[in-house]
């Protein structure tokens, strides 16, 4: 039979068109035979039809078919991508076709609420399909139905993005904004609300019979597993952090248990009962939890305490202990432990490890690392006499190495206190200070700047040997020298906005105490308080705070706050210094520093990896936290903070949300019928409304959600 085309497109009526009509026309059946075949099939199933081919199709009851679901839920169906839904649901809206449903099923409130979740899901699906297309290109020319399915999926995805380009784009912008700018865990809350909306809408639609329990349960169970995977990926974020064997609080187990129950509901009918299915899926859940617990014990984190710190140091086995770069943190940690009244660890094994390092490195040993080791030696003997003498000799001949950590131009008078560490305050320290005082006496006639320069120069030129020539006892200091030293120490302290100003104040206080003028250290309190307030950096989620050492932290916002993810760039040593400063000078009466936030920061920094164990960094955080908790000012803030009933809800918001999500999924699965009703096109209120509008909204013309929204607003106004 020769066919022709009535609506040629441009340039279609050519030889190729004719060839195609001829070639593909062979697939065309004989019209009469075809119609007869259809009639036979109808007659076989419905004997009452006398002449089905010519009987009018429009019966008296044709028209509106209501499924009983709230029409607003139907509107939401338009935003649901056909790929992720049971067939019955994709055929919601008008017609059985998904694209039609997308055009006419509108995206109103529930649709908008679902958009973030659906958009992210579509991003994943798009990537997945794109990858399949990329790696499956070799099969492209195979005209099998698998390839056809893939093409169909690509088309559906492309259609979805086309028809939802603007709202999806807005959602992505919103997510990006929340991710980088907004306080708290905005993205998590948004996605959670969106997921709840999705589950609610799909579940409600299923309850009117458009999807079977099996179809819906499999998807919702899959969705819960998807959320579980997301929770696992996001386990490091503040919103999911919690102290538990699973590392992410109860969120992960709740989602997993929910998925197990939903999958059990799905298979309940086929496998002989819900309990039997639940036993199976529950076993899988237990296996997953065991695997997770195992994973966390190996690669997860635990919150270390002072017992862990002591045990770690006393074991002396960790290579980190033997590494000289760790000794600064260890020295600070021991000072915190001592200040907090905690028992100090036995340093015997540590001493052996440190001495082995010194011996092993021999000529290569950087004597700068001797300073923290000598500070540790103040608590317990860890330095051999031979080493101490060797380093003292080195100090006599090469004083510059002691000070080489600083550029001479940056050298402050009280930096000499650093030299206390060389032989302890009872030995070299006093001698150094005495020598310094002698120098001052000699140069009193010189201007201050020149005197300082000369002192530094002399240090470099003459070496520490000169120090040892003077009287080592503090009593030998001339009153004039003490006065001058005191004056210069107080005058030379850093300004509050200088980098590590708090360290400067702490060292100055040590000098003042040594020369017997400790009461003058109290005068530094305003500067200390100012520096503390300037450098205090809370996170914008209101949960943590630390002292970066400088007020000019690059990532602080206009409120001086920092994104919690950036707090990892803060040096914990500066926070340690700040803690010592708080212990000595307290907080200003009107201070904004929340020590509970500082405690939270130190708690998080106290987390050690399961497999890697403790480190000197973690050890310092543990000791600093113990020190903080022992401070009266911290106890006062704890007492002053009365938790409200809302606080636990906020604290446990993620497990609670997971619980809610699981409950929704279970209820939705339970409400879905065993068998879905046949999909049928609907003509609900919405479509009637649409058809009553102008041509822009006529089905098949690409109705846009914002157009409909606009029309609905206009319509409601007209009615008013």
């Amino acid at each position, binding site marked *: 039979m020769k066919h022709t085309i009535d609506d040629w497109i441009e340039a279609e009526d050519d030889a190729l068109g004719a060839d195609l009509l*001829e070639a593909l026309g062979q697939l065309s059946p004989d019209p009469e035979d075809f119609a007869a075949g259809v009639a036979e099939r109808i007659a076989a199933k419905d004997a009452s039809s006398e002449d089905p081919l010519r009987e009018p199709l429009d019966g008296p009851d044709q028209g509106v078919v209501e499924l009983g679901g709230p029409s607003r839920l139907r509107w939401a169906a338009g935003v649901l991508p056909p790929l992720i839904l049971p067939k019955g649901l994709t055929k919601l809206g008008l017609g059985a*076709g998904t694209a039609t449903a997308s055009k006419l099923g509108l995206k109103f409130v529930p649709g908008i609420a679902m958009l973030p979740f659906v958009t992210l899901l579509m991003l994943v699906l798009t990537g997945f399909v794109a990858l399949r297309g990329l790696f499956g290109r070799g099969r492209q020319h195979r005209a099998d139905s698998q390839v056809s399915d893939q093409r169909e999926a690509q088309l559906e995805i492309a259609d979805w993005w086309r028809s939802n380009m603007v709202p999806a784009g807005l959602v992505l912008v919103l997510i990006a904004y929340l991710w980088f700018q907004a306080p708290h865990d905005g993205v998590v809350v948004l996605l959670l609300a969106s997921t709840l909306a999705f589950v609610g809408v799909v579940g409600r639609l299923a309850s009117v019979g458009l999807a079977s329990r099996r179809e819906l349960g499999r998807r919702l169970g899959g969705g819960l597993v998807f959320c579980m995977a997301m929770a696992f990926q996001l386990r490091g974020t503040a919103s999911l952090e919690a102290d538990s064997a699973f590392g992410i609080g109860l969120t992960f187990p709740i989602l997993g248990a929910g998925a197990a129950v939903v999958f059990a509901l799905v298979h309940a009918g086929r496998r002989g009962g819900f309990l039997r299915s639940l036993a199976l899926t529950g076993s899988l859940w237990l296996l997953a939890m065991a695997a997770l617990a195992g994973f966390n014990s190996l690669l997860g984190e635990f919150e270390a305490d002072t017992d862990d710190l002591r045990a770690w140091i006393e074991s002396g086995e960790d290579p980190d202990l033997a590494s000289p770069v760790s000794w600064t943190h260890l020295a600070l940690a021991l000072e915190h432990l001592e200040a907090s009244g905690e028992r100090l660890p036995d340093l015997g094994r540590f001493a052996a490890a440190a001495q082995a390092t010194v011996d092993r490195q021999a000529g290569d040993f950087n004597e700068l690392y001797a300073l923290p080791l000598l500070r540790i030696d103040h608590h317990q003997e860890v330095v051999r006499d031979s080493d101490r003498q060797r380093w003292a000799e080195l100090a006599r001949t090469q004083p510059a190495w002691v000070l080489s950590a600083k550029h001479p131009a940056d050298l402050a008078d009280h930096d000499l206190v650093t030299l206390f560490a060389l032989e302890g305050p009872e030995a070299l320290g006093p001698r150094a200070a005495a020598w310094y005082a002698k120098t001052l006496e000699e140069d009193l006639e010189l201007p201050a700047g020149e005197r300082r320069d000369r002192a530094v120069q002399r240090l470099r030129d003459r070496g520490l040997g000169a120090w040892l020539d003077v009287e080592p006892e503090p009593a030998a200091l001339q009153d004039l020298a003490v006065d001058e030293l005191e004056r210069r120490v107080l005058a030379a302290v850093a300004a509050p906005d200088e980098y590590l100003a708090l360290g400067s104040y702490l060292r100055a206080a040590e000098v003042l105490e040594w020369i017997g003028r400790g009461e003058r250290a109290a005068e530094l309190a305003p500067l200390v308080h100012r520096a503390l307030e300037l450098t205090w950096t809370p996170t914008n989620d209101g949960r943590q705070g630390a002292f970066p050492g400088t007020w000019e932290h690059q990532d602080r916002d206009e409120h001086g706050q920092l994104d919690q993810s950036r707090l990892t760039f803060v040096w914990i040593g500066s926070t340690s210094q700040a803690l010592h400063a708080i212990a000595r000078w307290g907080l200003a009466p009107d201070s904004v520093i929340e020590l509970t936030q500082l405690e939270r920061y130190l708690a998080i920094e106290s987390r050690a990896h399961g497999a890697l164990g403790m480190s000197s960094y973690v050890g310092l955080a543990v000791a600093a936290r113990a020190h903080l908790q022992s401070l009266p000012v911290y106890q006062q803030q704890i007492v002053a903070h009365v938790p409200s009933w809302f606080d636990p809800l906020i604290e446990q918001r993620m497990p609670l949300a997971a619980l809610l999500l699981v409950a929704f999924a279970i209820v939705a699965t339970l409400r879905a019928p065993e068998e879905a009703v046949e999909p049928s096109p609907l003509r609900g209120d919405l479509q009637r409304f649409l058809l009553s509008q102008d041509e822009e909204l006529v089905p098949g013309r690409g109705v846009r959600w914002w157009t409909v929204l606009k029309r609905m607003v206009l319509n409601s106004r007209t009615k008013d």
Partner: protein
Amino acid sequence: MNLDTIIERWRGALVGLLAAWGASPRDAVELAQDTFAEAYLARERFAGAWEDEAAVGAWLRGIASNLHLAHGRRRRPGGRRSLPLEAAGDPAEVERAAPPGASALVEAVGRLRGPWRTVLMMRYVEGSGLAEIAGLLGIGERAVEGRLRRARASLKELIETEGLAEGTKDEHRTQEGQA
């Protein structure tokens, strides 16, 4: 509006769609017949207007899709049938001799990308209108027009690249000369 009119209007595009999904020529015809029969028997549940191409096309496509899937499951337990178009069956099954060169052209069509192949088969089996194709695919007429253009361009390129048309044209010329 009666079933006869519906069949007359949608038959070609539906057979082409089913063939593009991988059904053999005979299966495509039978599945199309099943689809119309099911559509008629379930007509009470169709609430759209029979003149509305979008609604009718989506309705028929939904039924055809279900039937095609069920047909595939019957033929191959455990999954949807996966049958290359060119291996879908002997054209003789439709009890008509293929025109000279037609098999080469059909083969070329079968090697096109899915969407292009689908739209060509729906269009040229019986010269179906853009509205019917759009209705069955759930897209707009302009989209169908665009796909047709690109499908034809791809087909021409394929023919020129691999010389498939030469044989076809020669055979045509020979046939016309004999006539």
